[in-house]
């Protein structure tokens, strides 16, 4: 087990290093730099700009910049954000917990909703409710993430049991007790998480439904019937446990997908996470921050892959012995 984990983490580290290189090159090969005239104040003279460039190492040849970058990333130093005038690491340390909270809530909710919808569909397979649920899934599957976020924002701006922006209430949060703070935070996570759930549950429902239908003709289902189990018990116990296996693969895919959705959802709902951070870094061309966000994103994806492998081993007894 430990050996397996170690090997996977080592592989993941190589992948992240490769991604870091690709991103570094793509960004640094771009014409101009953050201090070029297009964005800065015309009153700032070229010599001042050059001074700034020197202080961030942007005057060096690309190869040297790359070496410096690799060395500092290896030490865990992700650089200094131009636009926020803070170390990138502390910016991300503030943003990451918010994104993780949002993704965790959305991940659990969309898997729960997706599996529930698929079970309901398969139980009534071929009938009207199967079609209706399938149609609703397809609809949300086809909706652009940011547009759905805007719609939900608009809807709840008129009719507002939940706050539509930020992670906490800016005026009252600090005055609340510990329980009140948790409630405040959860209230704020409802709408962004709802949006992400609506965007992501169809993928799970579609795959789960297909997986369940694939399992139904299995011999063990006939055995279960011959034992006198109800169709409902067979579906939700015997079939689901087997049909979960192909859906576990989606767990790994969920990380990049939810991260993508989080970019837009965080922007629309002003949720102070990684997505909002990278969107805000666009205009300032904050290279270290942009690069670090992509790097962290790919680390997420790699971690999702490892987690998926672990889940497979947890859920499929046939794989446990192979370790």
């Amino acid at each position, binding site marked *: 087990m430990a050996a397996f984990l170690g090997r996977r983490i080592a592989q993941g580290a190589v992948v992240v290093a490769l991604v870091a290189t690709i991103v570094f090159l793509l960004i640094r090969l771009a014409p101009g730099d953050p201090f070029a005239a297009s964005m800065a104040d015309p009153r700032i003279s070229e010599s001042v700009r050059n001074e700034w460039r020197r202080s961030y190492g942007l005057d060096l040849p690309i190869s040297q910049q790359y070496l410096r970058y690799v060395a500092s990333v290896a030490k865990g130093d992700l650089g200094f954000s131009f636009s926020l005038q803070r170390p990138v690491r502390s910016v991300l340390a503030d943003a990451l917990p918010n994104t993780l909270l949002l993704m965790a809530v959305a991940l659990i909710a969309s898997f729960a909703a997706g599996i529930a919808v698929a079970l309901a569909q398969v139980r009534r397979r071929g009938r009207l409710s199967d079609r209706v649920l399938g149609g609703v899934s397809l609809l949300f599957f086809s909706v652009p993430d940011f547009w759905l976020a805007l719609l939900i924002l608009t809807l709840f701006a008129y009719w507002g049991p939940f706050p539509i922006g930020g992670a906490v209430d800016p005026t009252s949060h600090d005055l609340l007790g510990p329980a009140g703070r948790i409630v405040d935070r959860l209230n704020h996570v409802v709408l962004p998480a709802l949006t992400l759930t609506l965007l992501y549950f169809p993928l799970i429902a579609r795959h789960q439904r297909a997986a369940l239908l694939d399992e139904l003709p*299995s*011999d*063990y289902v*006939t*055995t*279960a*019937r*011959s*034992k*006198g*189990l*109800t169709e409902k018990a067979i579906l939700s116990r*015997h079939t689901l*446990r*087997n049909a979960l*296996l192909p859906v576990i693969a989606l767990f790994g895919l969920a990380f990049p997908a939810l991260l993508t959705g989080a970019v837009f959802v965080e922007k629309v709902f002003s949720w102070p996470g990684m997505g909002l951070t990278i969107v805000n870094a666009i205009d300032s061309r904050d290279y270290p921050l942009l690069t670090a966000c992509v790097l962290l994103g790919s680390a997420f994806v790699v971690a999702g892959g490892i987690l998926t492998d672990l889940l497979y081993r947890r*859920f*499929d*007894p*046939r794989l446990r*012995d192979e370790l």
Partner: protein
Amino acid sequence: MTQPLLSVENLSTWFHTSSGVARSVDGVSFAIGAGETLGIVGESGCGKSVTALSILRLIQPPGRIEAGSRIMFEGKDIVTLDDKGMRGIRGNRISMIFQEPMSALNPVFTVGDQVAEVARVHGNGSRQDAWNRAVEMLSLTGIPSPEERAKQYPHQLSGGMRQRVLIAMALMMTPALIIADEPTTALDVTIQAQILELLVELQNRLGTSILMITHDLGVIAETASRVVVMYGGEVVEEAEVKTLFAGAHHPYTEGLMNAMPQITASRGRLNVIPGTVPSPTEWPSGCRFRDRCSYAWERCEREHPPLYQISGSHTSRCHLAVEPERRAHPHLPLVEQANATV
């Protein structure tokens, strides 16, 4: 036999598909007495497995049991029973042993859990009671160290061991009838004998009836007292096992007998019945076996043979019963004549 345990009367199970109606089981009748072992024998495609599944009403759409069929069991007609009543019979009064012990077991649950599940559904004891009973049954079927084996998954057991698990599962509630659908086909020859011995022994001990479904007359000879031969979705011959082995009447049964590997036979080649079972969407007119039969004459094409009584309880669906002199003049079956002319 005054009051049979199970009597199947005029059972028809048809599959309504886009390419026609497959009459897989077409008017089958037979009965099993308490404590008796009845064998059903036939090639694949003859309808024997569909018959087995029909008795537990495990046929899924597009298949269905047609009107006019009756399956009487303990005073109830299974065909018209409601779902709840049916579930009360499955695994409890009638249980089933399947052919492929690997795929018949759910790969993600321990075998003990799957055996115990039967008692959790039908019994009224606790989970622990069900588990203990499962371990007991595993031990009864000859599984060594059953406590440990119960905690293992199907893939960790050998084929013979898995079949014992299925038998334990079938015996959990001491049912009145066990349907064994080719229980040894997927196993090695040595294991086959062990499993059959086990079934016979457990039957003697528990007084259960067995419906033994197989393509192998050898299995019938070892386990059954009476045998039903099926062909083309119909019963073509029924007799005491001794009577049948002393002299089969139907040409199809004769063919099956000749196809059995004989230890004493010196010839290297196995006899096989020429041709294959026709498609159940288009059974031939008259006798369904006529294309493959070496006695067939024009009456076989014209007239669908009824079940003729040969003697006592011996019946056969062959016109030879009324025109026995034709048995003296065999010829090449039609399928072989067709091949010869190509």
